[in-house]
C-alpha cells in the first residue's frame, strides 16, 4: 500500500489516530528477521481495545521473543471500513501497515459476545475465508482467547484453535509447535491435531456434536486423540508471571487512558451471577513489592500521570494498606494519581478513603446489584444495607457528593418488590446525606442508579436459569421507573434487545455459527454499539437458519443436560455449580474463599487462596 495515499485517506475519516500507529513503545521489527508474525486482533474500536490489559501483557510478552513480531489490529470504525472496502485496502496491522492475510497467526481476544460479528468482519476485511474448513494452508492460523472462550462454540466454525484460560504460557507453546511445522512444511490438519495435545488448547474441528429430538446435545465426541476435557491454563505464581514494563501509549484519548497495574487474579467472593468470579479461580495475589516495582516501572516508561490498581475486587487485596503506603511515597512527588476501581462496600474504610483523597476526588461507584437483602442473598452478594449506608456515610463525610450504584434487573427469583427496593435504596441514601451534620456544606447530593439486564452465563450457578424475555424485561423496567419518585436519584437502564442477543450467544452452541454468518452477511457489526445494532437483521438471521434464540437463552436447563461448554474444564466443577444453584434458590449465602473453602474444585491447580493459612 502506498503510504502517502494511505495517509491521505486517513485525513478523510474521524479520529485518524486510531489507524496511524507510531505510538510511544509500539514495537517495530525487521520482518525478514522474525520467524512468526502474529496479528493480535481486538474485535472492537481502538479506544476500547487499547484499554484492555490482556492485550498489553501478551503484546509485550510475544515481542520479548526475537523470533516473534506481534502487532496490533483493531476493528476499523464504519467510516474507515467503507473507505477500506472502496479502495480495496485489506485489514492491516498498525505497526507495519502490512496486510494481516500473510501473517502466521491471526489471534482474537473475545471479551464479550456482542463482538462476534466483528470477528467475522475482520476476517473478511483481511480477505480470508470465514470458515476454518475453507482455510486449508498452514498459515494464517486463526486463534482466539479471552473469557468468552469458556464457551467457544458459537464461533467454533470460524476459529481454528482456542486458548482456554490464561495465555502467557500456552500461547507460546503453540507458537513454538507452529514454528516446527512451518520449518518442515507440515499441514494445517496435522498441526491442529498435534496442538490439541497441549493442555489448554481446544481445536473445535476435532469434536463431533450430536443432538436429540428436543434439540439438546446428546454427545460430544473427540476425534484423533483430542482430549475429552479441555483444562484451563493458569499462571500459578503471579510474582514470577510476566508483566510488561512498557505499555503502548496512545495518542488519542482511549477509554482507560492510564497505566494499569494488576494486583491479583480471581475473586474470593463467588457472586453467583458473575462469570469472572468463577472462571478466573483460584485467587492468586502478587506481593506488594512486586506490584510496587512493576507499577513504578510502568509509570516511568509511559509518562502516564495516573495508575489504577486492577483486579476483580481491589479492596479484597490482603496487602492493600502497606501497598498504598509504599506507592504514595513515589506517586505523590511524581504527581501521579492512584485510582482504585472495583471497591466493595463492606470493606471500604475511612483510612482507604483518605489515601485516595490524597490525589483526586471524583465520584464513588458501588455495586449492590440487587435492591433487597433477600435477593442479594440469592446472588451471594454478601453486602448488607447497613454496610451500604456506612460506606456512603464515610464517603459523604469525606467530601463526596455523588454516588453511583450498579444494579441488575432480571435476576433469578426477582419480584417487583426487589425492583422497588432499588428505588427505595436510592431514596434512603439521599435521606442519609441530608441527615448528616457534617455533610459537604451547601452542596446537593446526586445518586446515579444504573441498571443493567442480567444475562445468565456459563460456569456460574445461574447457567441453569432461563433469561427473562424482552417483554418481561421492559415491564420490569417500567416498574422500576415508576417506583422512583426522588429527583436526586437518577435512574438509567440498558436496552433489552442487546441483552437478548448476548443471552443466546453466551449459552449457545455451534449451531449458532450459521446465524452469525447470516447476520454478518446482512451487515451486522459493532452489535454492542447502539448506533450499529440492528435487531431486525438479527431476527431475520435466526429465522433463515431455523433457530430459535430463546432455546439457548430462555429455557430452564436440567442439571443433567449436556451443555455446549461442559467439555471445557475451568477448575470449578459442575457439582459445585449445582450446589450453589440450589443454595441460591433457598436464599442461602456462601462464605468467601478466605472465610471458608466451599470445595469448588479450583484447588486442583495447587496454588493461590486455596492454600492460604486461614
Amino acid at each position, binding site marked *: 500500500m502506498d503510504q502517502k495515499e494511505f495517509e491521505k485517506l486517513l485525513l478523510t475519516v474521524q479520529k485518524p489516530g486510531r489507524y496511524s500507529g*507510531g505510538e*510511544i513503545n509500539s514495537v517495530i521489527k525487521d520482518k525478514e528477521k522474525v520467524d512468526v508474525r502474529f496479528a493480535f486482533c481486538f474485535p472492537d474500536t481502538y479506544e476500547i481495545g487499547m484499554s484492555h490489559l490482556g492485550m498489553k501483557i501478551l503484546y509485550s510478552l510475544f515481542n520479548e521473543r526475537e523470533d516473534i513480531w506481534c502487532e496490533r489490529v483493531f476493528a476499523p470504525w464504519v467510516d474507515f471500513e467503507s473507505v477500506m472496502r472502496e479502495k480495496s485496502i485489506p485489514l492491516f496491522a498498525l505497526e507495519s501497515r502490512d496486510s494481516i492475510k500473510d501473517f502466521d497467526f491471526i489471534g482474537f481476544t473475545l471479551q464479550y459476545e456482542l463482538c462476534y460479528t466483528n470477528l467475522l468482519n475482520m476476517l473478511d476485511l483481511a480477505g480470508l475465508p470465514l470458515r476454518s474448513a475453507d482455510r486449508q494452508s498452514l498459515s494464517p492460523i486463526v486463534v482466539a482467547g479471552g473469557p468468552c472462550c469458556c464457551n467457544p462454540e458459537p464461533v467454533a466454525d470460524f476459529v481454528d484453535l482456542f486458548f482456554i484460560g490464561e495465555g502467557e504460557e500456552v500461547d507460546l507453546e503453540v507458537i513454538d509447535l507452529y514454528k516446527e511445522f512451518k520449518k518442515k512444511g507440515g499441514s494445517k490438519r496435522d498441526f491442529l491435531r498435534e496442538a490439541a495435545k497441549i493442555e489448554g488448547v481446544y481445536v473445535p474441528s476435532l469434536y463431533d456434536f450430536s443432538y436429540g429430538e428436543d434439540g439438546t446435545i446428546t454427545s460430544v465426541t473427540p476425534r484423533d486423540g483430542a482430549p475429552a476435557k479441555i483444562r484451563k491454563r493458569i499462571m500459578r505464581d503471579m510474582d514470577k508471571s510476566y508483566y510488561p514494563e512498557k505499555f503502548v501509549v496512545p495518542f488519542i484519548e482511549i477509554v482507560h487512558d492510564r497505566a494499569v497495574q494488576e494486583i491479583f487474579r480471581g475473586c474470593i467472593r463467588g457472586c453467583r451471577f458473575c462469570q469472572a468470579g468463577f472462571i478466573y479461580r483460584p485467587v492468586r495475589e502478587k506481593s506488594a513489592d512486586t506490584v510496587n516495582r512493576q507499577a513504578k516501572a510502568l509509570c516511568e*516508561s509511559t509518562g502516564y500521570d495516573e495508575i489504577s490498581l486492577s483486579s476483580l475486587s481491589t479492596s479484597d487485596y490482603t496487602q492493600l494498606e502497606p501497598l498504598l503506603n509504599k506507592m504514595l511515597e513515589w506517586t505523590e512527588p511524581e*504527581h501521579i494519581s492512584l485510582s482504585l476501581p472495583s471497591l466493595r462496600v463492606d470493606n471500604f474504610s475511612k483510612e482507604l478513603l483518605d489515601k485516595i483523597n490524597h490525589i483526586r476526588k471524583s465520584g464513588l461507584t458501588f455495586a449492590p446489584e440487587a435492591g433487597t437483602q433477600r435477593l442479594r442473598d440469592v446472588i451471594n452478594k454478601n453486602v448488607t444495607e447497613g454496610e451500604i449506608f456506612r460506606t456512603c456515610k464515610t464517603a459523604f463525610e469525606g467530601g463526596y457528593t455523588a454516588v453511583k450504584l450498579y444494579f441488575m434487573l432480571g435476576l433469578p427469583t426477582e419480584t417487583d418488590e426487589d425492583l422497588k427496593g432499588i428505588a427505595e435504596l436510592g431514596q434512603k441514601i439521599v435521606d442519609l446525606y441530608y441527615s448528616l451534620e457534617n455533610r459537604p456544606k451547601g452542596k446537593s447530593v446526586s445518586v446515579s442508579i444504573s441498571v443493567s439486564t442480567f444475562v445468565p452465563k456459563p460456569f456460574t450457578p445461574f447457567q441453569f436459569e432461563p433469561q427473562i424475555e424482552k417483554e418481561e424485561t421492559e415491564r420490569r423496567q417500567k416498574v422500576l421507573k415508576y417506583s422512583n419518585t426522588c429527583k436526586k436519584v437518577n435512574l438509567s437502564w440498558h436496552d433489552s434487545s442487546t441483552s437478548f442477543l448476548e443471552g443466546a450467544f453466551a449459552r449457545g452452541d455451534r449451531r449458532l455459527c450459521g446465524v452469525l454468518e447470516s447476520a454478518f452477511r446482512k451487515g451486522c457489526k459493532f452489535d454492542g454499539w447502539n448506533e450499529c445494532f440492528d435487531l431486525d437483521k438479527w431476527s431475520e438471521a435466526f429465522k433463515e437458519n431455523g433457530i430459535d434464540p430463546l432455546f439457548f437463552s430462555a429455557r430452564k436447563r436440567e442439571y443433567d443436560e449436556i451443555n455446549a461448554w461442559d467439555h471445557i474444564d475451568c477448575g470449578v466443577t459442575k457439582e459445585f455449580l449445582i450446589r450453589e444453584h440450589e443454595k441460591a434458590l433457598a436464599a442461602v449465602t456462601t462464605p468467601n474463599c478466605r472465610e471458608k473453602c466451599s470445595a469448588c474444585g479450583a484447588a486442583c491447580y495447587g496454588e493461590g487462596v486455596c492454600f492460604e493459612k486461614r
Partner: protein
Amino acid sequence: MRNVRLFYIKTGRMKFLSQLDMNRLMTRVIRKSGLPVWYTEGFNQHIYINYAVPLSLGFEGLYEIMDIRITDDEITPENIAKQLNSAAPDGIEFLRAAKPVKPTVEIAFAEYELIFPDEDNGIYKDLREFLSQESVVCLKKDKKGRMKEFDIIPKIKKTEFLSNKVLLVLSAGNEGNLNPSLLLSAFFENTGREPVFCEVKRLMLFDRELKPFV
C-alpha cells in the same frame, strides 16, 4: 526556575494528532524524559506548557514552539533537548531549547508550504489568480461562535509560486490568524473546483518585522 522555549518539528504520523492529542503527548514525553519541570499549583495540577501557535490536525510543522518552566538551574539547553528527544516518538524532534527572547503574543506571521500532489500546474495558476483579487470575503466563526465576515486578502503577507508548490506568509497568532484550510476552502468554493487533497507544512513563525520568531 526559568522559562525555556523549545523549538521542535511535527512531521510524519504526528500530523494525525490534534492539539488536544498533542498536549497529552507532550505531557507524557516530558514526564518520561524525567526533566524537572514546573507544575501549576491550582486545583488540578498539571505541567505548565504554553504552545505558541497550535497546529491543525493534518499539517506538518518544521518550526513549532512551546514554552515550559524548568525548576533546575544547572541543566543546559543542549541536554534539555537531548533528554526530550530520548522520550519523543518518531515525527517529533526537539531542535533546540533556549531562553525565550520575545513573548509569544508577538508572533505575527507564519509561512506555509502548500502542495497539491495529485494535480497539474493548472491548480497553482488558478490559486494565483484567486489570491490576486482585491478582496475575498468568507465566513468564519469568531471567538463567541458567531459567523462573521472575514476578508482573507489583507491577511496574506506574501505569496511565492514555484513550479509544483506555493509558499504563503499568512497572518498568525492571537489577532487575525488565517488558517490555510480556510483559504483553501474559500478557493474551492469561489472557483467552483472540486476540493482536492493538499499537503500543508508550516515552515516558520515570524514576528512583526518578518524575522524568525525566537
